[in-house]
């Protein structure tokens, strides 16, 4: 791959990088929001709701992300759901990750020691306050490492969006490769790029975790 080619495609590649980051951020944010709601719903007393949410999670965790994208993007129009490739990508990433995030939140809530909730009940705190002031902060600390982990996994999943023609980095790279016959170089560059991205994010993530868990560090 020579410098000319790269220079010529630089705008497209940079744009692709932007789309990758945007899809990742938007999809993850959507996934975190839905996942949190699902985890809260799973804690509700209604058994029907619990069962329904279980099915939701099992379906999303039991099928490949690519299949879900196809169903959403290619299958959507036949039930009147017409999404652009990018919109389908973001929604797909959000739904897919929500299954994982909901399990993480659920485990986080389950990790809050019963006694801490009882202490709040014994002073007469309302359920909303107990959730916001006691259960949530402690659950989030427990959930921070797996959340970071899942965010990293999702950053890698964004390349799958190229298959449904979302103009993210992988897609731009392949376009360039096809037009300039530099497939091998392009894909090698992609590999290096993602490896670096994941390394950097992992390291950052570990720092955030250390911060978040510092105050629980000396607990047995």
């Amino acid at each position, binding site marked *: 791959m020579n410098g000319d080619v790269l220079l010529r495609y630089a705008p497209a590649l940079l744009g692709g990088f932007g789309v990758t980051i945007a899809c990742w951020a938007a999809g993850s944010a959507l996934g975190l929001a839905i996942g949190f709601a699902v985890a809260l719903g799973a804690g509700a007393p209604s058994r029907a709701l619990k069962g329904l949410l279980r099915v939701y999670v099992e379906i999303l965790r039991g099928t490949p992300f690519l299949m879900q994208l196809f169903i959403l993007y290619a299958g959507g129009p036949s039930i009147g759901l017409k999404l652009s490739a990018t919109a389908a990508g973001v929604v797909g990433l959000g739904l897919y990750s929500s299954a994982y995030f909901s399990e993480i939140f659920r485990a986080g809530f389950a990790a809050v*020691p019963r*006694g*801490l909730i*009882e*202490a*709040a*009940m*014994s*002073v*007469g*705190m*309302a*359920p909303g*306050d107990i959730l916001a*002031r*006691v259960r949530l*902060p*402690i659950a989030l*600390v427990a959930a921070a490492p797996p959340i970071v982990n899942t965010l990293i996994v999702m950053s890698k999943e964004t390349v799958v969006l190229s298959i449904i023609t979302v103009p993210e980095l992988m897609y731009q790279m392949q376009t360039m490769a096809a037009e300039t016959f530099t497939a091998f170089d392009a894909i090698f560059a992609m590999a290096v790029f993602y490896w670096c991205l994941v390394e950097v994010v992992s390291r950052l993530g570990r720092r955030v975790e250390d911060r978040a868990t510092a*105050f*629980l*560090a*000396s*607990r047995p």
Partner: protein
Amino acid sequence: MTHPMIAMRAVGKSFGAHQVLRGVDLEVQRSEVVCLIGPSGSGKSTLLRCVNFLESYDEGEVRIEGELIGWDLDKEGERRLMAPRRLREMRREIGMVFQHFNLWPHMTALQNVVEPLVRVRGLKKDEATGRAAAMLARVGLAEKAHAHPQRLSGGQQQRVAIARALAMQPRLMLFDEPTSALDPELVGEVLEVIRALAADGMTMLIVTHEMGFAAHVANRIAFIDGGRIVDEGAPRRVFHESAEPRVRQFLQTYHDRNAF
């Protein structure tokens, strides 16, 4: 007519097929200190937890200053769970201290005390902080106000927990084995705080394994075994003159274990 602070009548409770409480009657008068003792698994902690309805009871009544806690009775005498808001209002007046302290780990000692004052009593932040600081000073922890729980020893954590309950200005205090999770050398500082409370006239119901402390601080001892109160009375009588073989055997085992 004035009601007793706590009045329990024929309280029964089962976990599945296992009957934990079998018709307990117990009264605690204002400014009285009652210690519940007995072998582990006898139901004494469960009984204590029924007083603020952390544990629901299946039969009988638990009344706080005459008011039934946890249940509403309709005209036919059918019981229905009391409105959550009303239950919370009653719980505010009942302080509770747990075996494992249960301090909120993400808050400092001071914040642990401030939190319920702001959320439940609706105090302004600085007013709550003032009251909380005074309360920490009272249990001898003024200089630890800004430490997180895991930086404190077990004894210090338990004193913060007592301050948290006391700051709510409860009408009575429940203690569920407050020194059982502590290293032996830290037990004294916690018992000292409870002793001071007794001297101030706080009404207290205490589950404990510290017989010496119970003998010293309690107005009355209730010995529980198999979900029933087997013997009840002044400490001197229960500890030295009980006619109940189970009480004698329990105390004998206790003395043997603690003898040098």
